[in-house]
């Protein structure tokens, strides 16, 4: 996964609605590649029929 640009990262941060200051933004930008590596790992191809782990129970106990 290519490194995220500062502009693209600014957009991601803005979507959260959290009032980050400049130092917090910089610190999160430093950590983001580790998160991106995890995302890359889970988005590797899976069989189309692979179902999520969630099970919906229609009858509320």
């Amino acid at each position, binding site marked *: 996964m290519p490194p995220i640009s500062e502009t693209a990262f600014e957009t991601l941060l803005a979507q959260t609605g959290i009032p980050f200051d400049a130092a917090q933004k910089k610190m999160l930008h430093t950590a983001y590649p580790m998160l991106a590596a995890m995302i890359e790992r889970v988005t590797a191809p899976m069989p189309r029929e*692979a179902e999520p*782990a969630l099970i919906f129970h229609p009858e509320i106990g």
Partner: protein
Amino acid sequence: MFTIAEASKLIGDKQLSPVELTQSCLAQVKKLNPTLNAFLLVTEERALADAKAAEARIMAGKGRGPLDGIPIAHKDIYNTAGIRTTGHSKLLQDNVPTADSTVVHKWAEAGTTLLGKLATHEFAMGGPSFDLPWPPARNPWNPEHFTAGSSSGTGAAVASGMIMGGTGSDTGGSIRGPSALCGIAGIKPTYGLCSRAGVLPLSFTLDHTGPMAWTVEDCAILLQAMAGHDPSDPASADRPTPDFTTNLSNGVKGLRIGVVRHFFEQDNPVSPATKQGIDHALEVYEHLGAEVREVKLSSLADYNAPGWLILLSEAYAVHEPWLKTRFNDYGELFRDRLALGGLIRASDYVQAIRRRRMLCLELKEAMADLDILVTAAAPGEAAKITEVPKWLMLEKPNFTMPFNVTGSPAMCVCTGFGTGGLPVSMQLIGKPFDEATLFRAGHAYETAMGWRKQRPALAGA
């Protein structure tokens, strides 16, 4: 110092007074808590009232069972009626619930005496933090060192003999991490076995409640009083509660044990003492008649990735309203770690839960002809409390998250001591709802070894 099993027998035989036992634990709290910071709140009056009531019941021949008169405390994310429950956070520092969580109620009904509320990492994820209203718990084997988290106060309080057992919660390892670094036993039961109703949530599909104690046997006794269906927890399993103690001493002859060696040799290499402890434990099991063989799973990183993406996404959803309005009221570690959850796209979360199911199926297949797995619980001895990296969970895959992802029961057992006299540990993993086999294996190892005779020097045992 007694174990719960020992104290329970003495109390039942009227040779030990619950009031005197509680007073002795309270004295230990007064002596050690200023150093260890394990308690956020000590409920001395409540503890003594509980102990007197237990003593009266027992003298009248109306004892409630093995936990009657046993001193315990709860992690401060468990709601306690009329008693402050803070999540170790400024955001809830004046929060007083009106009802007990299900587990708190169940342990009270079993006759326990409540000594107070225990330190946690902020909202069960943030520590070790030095910018919260209360300081972080410290390791009784060396207070300069980390307890791990997030059930940090429970780990410190049990190891130092302030309490005989306590509650933890485990979303990515928060029972097993502190159990490992504090040298005690702790079990994350199967997802759905123990109620989470009335416990502050972190991540709905990964959160587990469970007990921590000095021995495996004590964990079995505590879990017996904790497990069971609860309609107020939507994830609670509607099935009978197994008996965890009857077959505890049946040994491991014929038990089939799989070793996930690549987790702790290649994926995240452990300290020499940790590896030596696991290898020796496997020799002990073989000597006791178990069959040991190696098993291969996906990498630790493959299990950690969906785990952390699910955890951060769900925790972000829980905290989003406060993150937007009170961001700087959180401690730095929790706030910064959790902020990453807001950067995960919905489709990435869905892919993570799809991946999770594939890993559940992989583990099920790998354990088809095995009874338990053995692997590491922690990479090594406790680090200094001032040297824990903010992004530790992203930098290296941990050994505990895989079994939050799969929901399997997993337990820590102390395997001795390493550098600086600090404890090391192994992790035993069972099939869903087969905690009884885990307890049998853990108890067999503890009985064969002498580690349970050694308490931290400052505990004064």
